[in-house]
């Protein structure tokens, strides 16, 4: 299975009822690349995926290209894509192996060879013994693997997944996430994985498209998105972000809690963002920023300290080592390297 390159060109979507689900968006997916589309519920992820799949047509002017060929007018059944739905969409009237073989059946593959091929795919998904079962005799995780097997059995040109793990419980979700990751890397198939879960997006996406209200907020590798978010929205949606308000005067960022040297032009109002792991707690004396500890959550491997940032401001979060103990009300210093401060 080799993947194809996909080009989405100015695809907007306005539904019949007037809902503007997508402003025209454009992006490219390289051959064999795994793309994750990440964003909060209702931001247009599913709509974007359905336009690539051919389940939904873009507004006039939008185009979808597979390996350079315009597939915009083709319905999904003529695009040769594999699709995995959040609700699995397995056929209850067919056994597991019949489900997996269905794509081959409609392609006219005779019964014996198609059952043989389906069995191979089932074996690849560690479902070899389940071929004869009815769908309602499977657990949620098994159903999702059958849905994947069914989509892969037709050797699609691209695999499209719409929040495939959302219906599963947390532990299972993590197992399947790793399994899908392994699968995508072995098959080297192009894929688009829609999710609202940032961990899934980071594990499964070579690149992540972050969406906000029907538009693309940022496209980049997981590291780009995490370390160099393009907007406040991306910064706060991906991972945890601390926010510190103040002003910049003469190369110094002045806040209520103290002063930090920064390499930036003067600004009467500035907002700095930094990650909890970039925050270092220091002795209070002589520290550039000083806070009182609001509370401390011991998490085993790490420890999350909440700092009181004053009236009306959200607490600042510092992730520290798990040995020291912190008392509420205790005074502490806070240091952040200038390179870890983002002004957005």
């Amino acid at each position, binding site marked *: 299975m080799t993947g194809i390159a996909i080009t989405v060109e100015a695809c907007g979507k306005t539904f019949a009822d007037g809902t503007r689900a997508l402003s025209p968006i454009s992006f490219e997916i390289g051959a064999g690349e795994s793309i994750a589309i990440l964003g909060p519920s209702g931001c247009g992820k599913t709509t974007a995926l359905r336009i690539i799949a051919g389940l939904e047509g873009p507004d006039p002017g939008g185009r979808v290209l597979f390996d350079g060929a315009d597939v915009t007018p083709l319905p999904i059944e003529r695009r040769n894509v*594999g699709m995995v739905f959040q609700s699995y969409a397995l*056929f209850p009237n067919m056994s597991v192996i019949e489900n997996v073989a269905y794509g081959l059946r*409609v392609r006219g593959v005779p019964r014996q060879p198609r059952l043989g091929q389906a069995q191979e795919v089932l074996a690849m998904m560690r479902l070899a013994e389940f071929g004869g079962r009815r769908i309602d005799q499977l657990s949620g995780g098994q159903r999702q693997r059958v849905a994947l097997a069914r989509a892969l059995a037709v050797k699609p040109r691209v695999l499209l997944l719409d929040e495939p793990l959302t219906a599963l419980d947390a532990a299972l979700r993590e197992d399947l996430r790793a399994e899908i990751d392994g699968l995508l890397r072995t098959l080297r198939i192009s894929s688009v994985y829609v999710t609202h879960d940032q961990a899934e997006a980071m594990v499964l996406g070579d690149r992540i498209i972050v969406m906000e209200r029907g538009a693309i907020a940022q496209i980049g590798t997981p590291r780009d998105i995490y370390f160099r978010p393009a907007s406040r929205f991306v910064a706060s949606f991906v991972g945890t972000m601390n926010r510190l308000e103040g002003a910049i005067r003469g190369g110094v960022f002045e806040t209520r809690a103290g002063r930090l040297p920064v390499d930036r032009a003067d600004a009467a109002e500035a907002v700095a963002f930094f990650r909890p792991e970039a925050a270092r707690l220091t002795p209070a004396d002589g520290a550039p920023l000083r806070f009182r500890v609001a509370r401390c959550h011991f998490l085993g491997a790490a420890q999350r300290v909440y700092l009181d940032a004053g009236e009306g401001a959200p607490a600042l979060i510092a992730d520290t080592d798990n040995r020291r103990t912190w008392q509420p009300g205790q005074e502490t210093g806070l240091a952040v390297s200038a390179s870890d401060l983002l002004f957005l």
Partner: protein
Amino acid sequence: MQRTSPLIRALGAGVTFLVSAFMIVPVILSLAAGVTANYFQGIWRSGATIDWVAEVWTLYAGTVFLSLQIALATVAATLLIGVPAAYVLNRHPSRGARAVEEIITLPLAIPGLAIALALLVTYGGFGDFRKSWAFILVGHVLYTLPFMVRSVMAVLAGIDARTLEEGAASLGATPWQRFAHVILPNARPGILAGALMVMTLSIGEFNLTWMLHTPLTKTLPVGLADSYASMRLEIASAYTLIFFIMIVPLLIGLQLFAASLDQTGARNRTGQPAEEIRP
């Protein structure tokens, strides 16, 4: 659980028995009259006979066969119209579809007599059509169609047919393959329930049919009314007996079927795993 005293329980059982008897005894008496040689002497003195049943059969066998014929044709017609209609309404849930659904359901609220009158006013002039059994068939189809459409639509909504169809489409199935391989087999419970319901309604339908029939197109219920009006009580009762024998197995079938549907309904049908849904 609170314990009820034996007295209250005995009382409850007694009342239940009386009420049941109140309803069932007339049915039994009426049916018994059909096999009684002389009703006025009673079954014990005059003895039992199947002569009346035989006589009804020679007089009215035609109505039984016509009723069956119309019922089967009504089922066929509602299947051909109702199943695709339900499918289309489910697939395109627009405001227009909602209106169509309402219009299809309208005949339920309109008295059968009014439907019949409308048909007579409109098509009464087409002599051959008006005189044929197809005229009654049209009335029955109008009257029973909503039951078929509703029954199939309910099942389609329950199995999330749209997503199933999209799943099939993503695997390369053409619209016709999707309908034949995925929609029809999974809608089967609704189709069967609808067909049984339509069959039962058609066989028992009187209002409409009475208005639409001609002396040559009498159905079983119309013949029954006829015999009540003009024949000996024993004949009418024997006729009821025949009607009963036809309709009861259908009703029982319907009940058993509904029960089995309830059981499959309790299992999860959408493909969502039950264990993750539970809190």
